[in-house]
């Protein structure tokens, strides 16, 4: 296995060749905040929380989709980066309707956790208060509330890559993007959904939830993603 060396925050560190900057950082004790990233799903660089400064690069680079290269010099926690991360979270808070106090995911929500961890105690941006599509409760087990979505696309990736059904996808662009079911249908009418619940488990916020869940009742379990992925890669289960 090839090993590369790079400099992170003034320290020379090493990492296996081929890993992302995010992995290189985490393997060397430097934690970067993330929201759209979930180990086991392909990274997309949607949330931009993991932006880092790479010497020589014209722009800030998302660590989750950037391959770590030998000789890279990286800064992960400059004052500018710290401020940008706060702004990103604040933009998310103001984009849709996030009312933590009455949300099913209060206590397990990763957006709320990132805000607390990074010291975001309010948003400087004006709340948009968009009028979003109605909550979809037509599915037998799952509910979908667009008010809480941060467009991380974990649900889309989990359904496509782990379950293989590709029931969920995205329509629209920018602030108008929305998670959709099949060809923009009601979830209860989907012919592709296997009702496995993987999407609900990987959703970092209260967008996808088990029907009947009351305030702060949602518990998510993402352990299965890695379990399944590793099992497949290492051919841990014999099958004919």
């Amino acid at each position, binding site marked *: 296995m090839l090993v590369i060396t790079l400099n992170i925050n003034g320290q020379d560190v090493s990492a296996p060749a081929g890993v992302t900057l995010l992995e290189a950082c985490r393997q060397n004790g430097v934690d970067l905040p993330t929201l759209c990233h979930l180990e086991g799903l392909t990274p997309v660089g949607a949330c931009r929380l993991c932006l880092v400064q790479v010497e020589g690069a014209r722009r800030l680079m998302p660590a989750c989709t950037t391959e770590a290269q030998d000789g890279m010099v990286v800064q992960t926690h400059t004052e500018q980066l710290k401020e940008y991360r706060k702004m990103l979270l604040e933009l998310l808070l103001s984009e849709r309707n996030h009312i933590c*106090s*009455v949300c*099913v995911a209060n206590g397990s929500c990763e957006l709320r956790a990132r805000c607390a961890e990074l010291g975001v105690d309010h948003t400087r941006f004006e709340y948009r208060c968009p009028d979003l599509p*109605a*909550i979809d*409760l*037509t599915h037998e087990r799952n*509910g979908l509330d667009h008010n809480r979505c941060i467009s991380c696309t974990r649900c889309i990736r989990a359904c496509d890559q782990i379950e293989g059904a590709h029931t969920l996808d995205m329509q629209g662009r920018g602030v108008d993007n929305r998670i959709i079911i099949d060809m923009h249908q009601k979830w209860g009418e989907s012919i592709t959904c296997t009702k496995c619940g993987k999407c609900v488990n990987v959703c970092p916020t209260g967008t996808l939830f088990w*029907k*009947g*869940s*009351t*305030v*702060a*009742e949602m518990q998510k379990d993402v352990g299965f993603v890695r379990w399944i992925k590793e099992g497949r890669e290492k051919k841990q289960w014999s099958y004919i």
Partner: protein
Amino acid sequence: MAKKIHIEPVTRIEGHAKITIQLDDTGAVDEARLHVVEFRAFEKFCIGRPFYEMPGITNRICGICPTSHALASVKAGDSIMGVAVPPTAVKLREIMNWGQFVQSHALSFFHLSAPDLLLGFDSDPATRNVMGLIQKYPDLARKGVRLRGIGQEIIRIVADKSIHQAWAVPGGVREPLTAEKREAIRAMLPEAFETIETALNLLKSNLDKFAEEVKIYDFPSMFAGLVTPAGGLEHYDGLMRFVDTHRKIIEPGIQNDKYRDYIEEASESWSYLKFPYFKSQGPYNFKESAGMYRVGPLGRLNVCDYAGTPRADRELEQFRRLGKGGAVTSGFHFHYARLIEILFALEKIEETLKDKDILDDWVRAEGGVNRLKGVGMTEAPRGTLIHDYTVDRNGLITDVNLVVSTGHNNMAMNRTITNIAKQYIKGDNISEGILNRVEHGIRAFDPCLSCSTHAVGKMPLTIELLAPDGSMLKEISRG
């Protein structure tokens, strides 16, 4: 010449309130009006949410009695689900509810009213508040703070949070009671009993000092509240009873979902709080107080046949004598009734904790949408509270109607301040003490939906005497 007197701000009912007093040409009071000025549109912005989120959302209607809204909400949810709530869960919900009564009534009596009652209506405004009470009666004030604390702690023990809990849910509750938690509640009861007995004795032995107030606050009206099927005092689940001013039963026990056959809500352009009235005594007429009824501690004690616990029944028997054979009609006795209810709640908690199934862990029924309409009716400390939800087949709310406790008392509150104003205001002679007395008229109802502590001691009031051309003749400020 007709004049209009403005008093603002007054106690909050869900925000600020104002009082206007209209004088007629002779300078006598024609009418006083209570204007409720806060509005948040809960009934409209809830549309489109799942019905099982409603307990969490309606919690936020009021920070003093969120538990009451949550219970009315989960009961509406139980109905929509069409489930039988496990008996243990019902009892646990009741324990939380009684804890709520203890804390809310204690707040009203000690933090709000005691300064007036013990320090005097006309005492120095600077100290006529709970801080002043702590100075003059440190022992009693501490006891009062502790009593409220005990009520909050009971809620916290069963429901994990004292304010805006999420433990009561449609179908039951989320966690059972453990033996440890039961003992923790039990340990607090002796102190609570001692405090409430002290407070009751104090009030009863001083009642004669308030003879004038008792008289002014006295007017005939119907009374309403929930009762058990046998006619006993009830705070969580029962049938709604109406009695007239002689305590004669007009409606013995209305099923919760039939309330609209008996109660109609009118509105006026000068207040955001609606005016529920008893339909068969309509049509709606504000000036005549048509269909007016009072709810809350006074309402509940008047409609019930008995309390059902030994100490409370003893107190109730003594209390009833004030009615001289009919209902106890003086609004001043809300204070007295409130204390009896604290005693009742403590006794019921003690009794229920002894139940052999109280630690059972089957506390939640499961279900989906089995009815498209659910009405949850319960007693909040301030009166009967109704949550009426309509949902679609997926459980999304399509319509909400909330009849909040203080709303039932809206007409009666207006009547009370009119009476007080008529008694004390004649022409130009408005003194600072009068403002306080008018305020106390509202305070006795312990108006809910918001923090009644806005009026602990004295509310900031301005009275403007305006000439017919709108120019200011005189301004008296207080606070």
